[in-house]
């Protein structure tokens, strides 16, 4: 039974054009995903592919244009008012930039306490103890509760962000490029911490990253997005050992490796299409090395190539 079940999620933004006209940018288009409890689903793709928007829409932080987001038995998209506010305790976000995502005027302890005060859980007398517990869990010293964000290093700030996300004991945590802004040495500390917390607390992660090495290290399943759509979704091992979509293949081939093996395989050329004026066929056709005339006629459906391995391509595989 999946904890999170996203079905046909769409997000569109209205864009003003000249002469008072407006058109819609489909940032997320018909995305369906499921994440089992205690596991990590990674969303990967280039910047602008809609991975962050999809996750934020699932967390009700960006309005969705359609679809459903089932968290357990509740459809988050249908909730309003107090019910929505209470549901927010179950989905929390760790943000990319540990500098701008913490209030500079609050002490670290108050930052971590804030979600509890806002949502009223746990009861007031227990909150201080909970803050202390959270600080210990993320590897901060108790006396650091009294410090302000600017007195911490980048990695320590990200620990505060993680403690804040854990404060309401959420079911689902969205990690939006949680380690991208950190130095490599600090990145390793935070990745290890996230994995340890997952084992200890049974957390479920929706892990957004553009770094495929990090994704391979952290995820159980991977969904690859391109221009608002999922182009491939599979189990981690299947996706990395046997990528089917040419975009996934190109993405993997582009990662520089310390093993110095000569990079082979698919190279991308060309430019992505204008998202405001998308082509009728496959979005990747303009950059695909294996493009055929039929690719430009209609979009390929996201079909199961193998059990548990979905690919949106007319000519998957080699």
């Amino acid at each position, binding site marked *: 039974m999946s904890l999170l079940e996203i079905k046909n999620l769409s997000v569109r933004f209205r864009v003003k054009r000249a002469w008072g006209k407006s058109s819609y940018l489909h940032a997320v288009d018909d995305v369906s995903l499921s994440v089992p409890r205690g596991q990590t689903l990674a969303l990967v793709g280039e910047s602008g592919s809609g991975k962050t928007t999809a996750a934020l829409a699932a967390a009700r932080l960006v309005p969705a244009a359609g679809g459903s987001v089932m968290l357990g038995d509740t459809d988050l998209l249908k909730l309003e008012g107090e019910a929505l506010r209470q549901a927010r305790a179950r989905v929390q976000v760790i943000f990319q930039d540990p500098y701008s995502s913490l209030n500079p005027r609050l002490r670290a302890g108050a930052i971590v306490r804030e979600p509890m005060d806002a949502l009223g859980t746990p009861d007031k007398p227990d909150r201080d103890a909970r803050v202390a517990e959270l600080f210990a869990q993320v590897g901060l010293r108790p006396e650091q509760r009294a410090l302000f964000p600017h007195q911490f290093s980048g990695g320590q700030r990200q620990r505060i962000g993680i403690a804040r996300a854990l404060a309401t004991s959420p079911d689902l945590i969205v990690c939006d490029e949680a380690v991208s802004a950190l130095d490599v*040495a600090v990145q*390793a500390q935070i990745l290890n911490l996230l994995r340890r917390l997952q084992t200890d607390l049974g957390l479920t992660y929706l892990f957004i990253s553009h770094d495929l090495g990090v994704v391979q*290290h952290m995820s159980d399943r991977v969904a690859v997005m391109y221009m608002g759509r999922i182009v491939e979704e599979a189990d981690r091992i299947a996706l990395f050992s046997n990528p089917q979509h040419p975009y996934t293949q190109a993405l993997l081939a582009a990662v520089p*490796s310390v093993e110095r093996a000569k990079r082979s395989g698919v*190279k991308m050329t060309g430019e992505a299409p204008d998202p405001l004026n998308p082509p009728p066929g496959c979005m990747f056709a303009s950059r695909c090395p294996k493009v055929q005339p039929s690719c430009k006629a209609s979009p390929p459906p996201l079909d199961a190539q193998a059990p548990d391995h979905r690919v949106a391509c007319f000519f998957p595989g080699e």
Partner: protein
Amino acid sequence: MSLLTVENLRIELALRSGPAPVIDDLSLTLEAGKTLSFVGESGCGKSMTALAIMGLLPDVGRVAHGTIRFDGEELTTLPDTRLREIRGNDISMIFQEPMTSLNPVYTVGEQIAEVLRRHKGMSQRDAWTRAIDLLDSVRIPNAKSRVSAYPHEMSGGQRQRVMIAMALSCAPKLIIADEPTTALDVTVQAQIFELLRDLARDTGTALILITHDMGAVAEMADDVVVMYAGRAAEVGPVDAILKDPRHPYTQGLISCVPHLKADPTAARHDLTEIPGIVPPLSSFGTDSCLFASRCAHAHDRCLSARPKAFACPAGQFAACWLEADG
């Protein structure tokens, strides 16, 4: 003779507490047509070294000791007028942020042409034609019409290509690229790297690549300088250092990153952590190993004396006392 030789370079920043060495006793050489890479965490002095070579140190910084010889000239003592000729003509730089390093109110063509008019004394018309050629050489499609585009009309990758075109415009002998692909997607990064490699091969330009990504180093560089807290921790050929890193910091830098594995079924162990962070600038001058506080192998000697660079069997030099004992 080497194109660039830096010897015992020491750069001091004037802090309120007194001068602190951001670069301490750094030596390196770079041959024409080769690529040298600086790696390390932020705050280790990678960019400061680049700025020193360019003669662009901030007002609070000064070269306290050592020499920078470029193509037969001693850069540290040159007057500003001569430095200005060298910058752009012989050494040029590509910055990290293609969004902020271009002027938003001029077209990219005007910005490239300005460099050519200023440094080469070209006429308006010749400079413009040359700008189109340059955009073409960095593989911007339809260069003839894109030359009149403003920076905001281009993607991040294209803007970085424009920066490269500007850096190339005077056919420099050395290009310094400071984290040129950090702000870009991996697919675009692969294209930019390929472009830089091809250009270096075709024109014989030497390249200094500043990065924190060991993968990028493996892909691009011939030699590498691993920098830690303003000092060279390990210097040598890339192959030697990747195959057999001797300095604990280099070992940490390589193993703390989750690299894409050839075999995805392999067990995923916890990443190696380098505990702590880079020490504060005020402690950079002390006569000890600055990595000792984060090092698993630290002993008394590391705290009492600064290790010198010891030669290692694979061909690199490592500034670590462990190497002294064989």
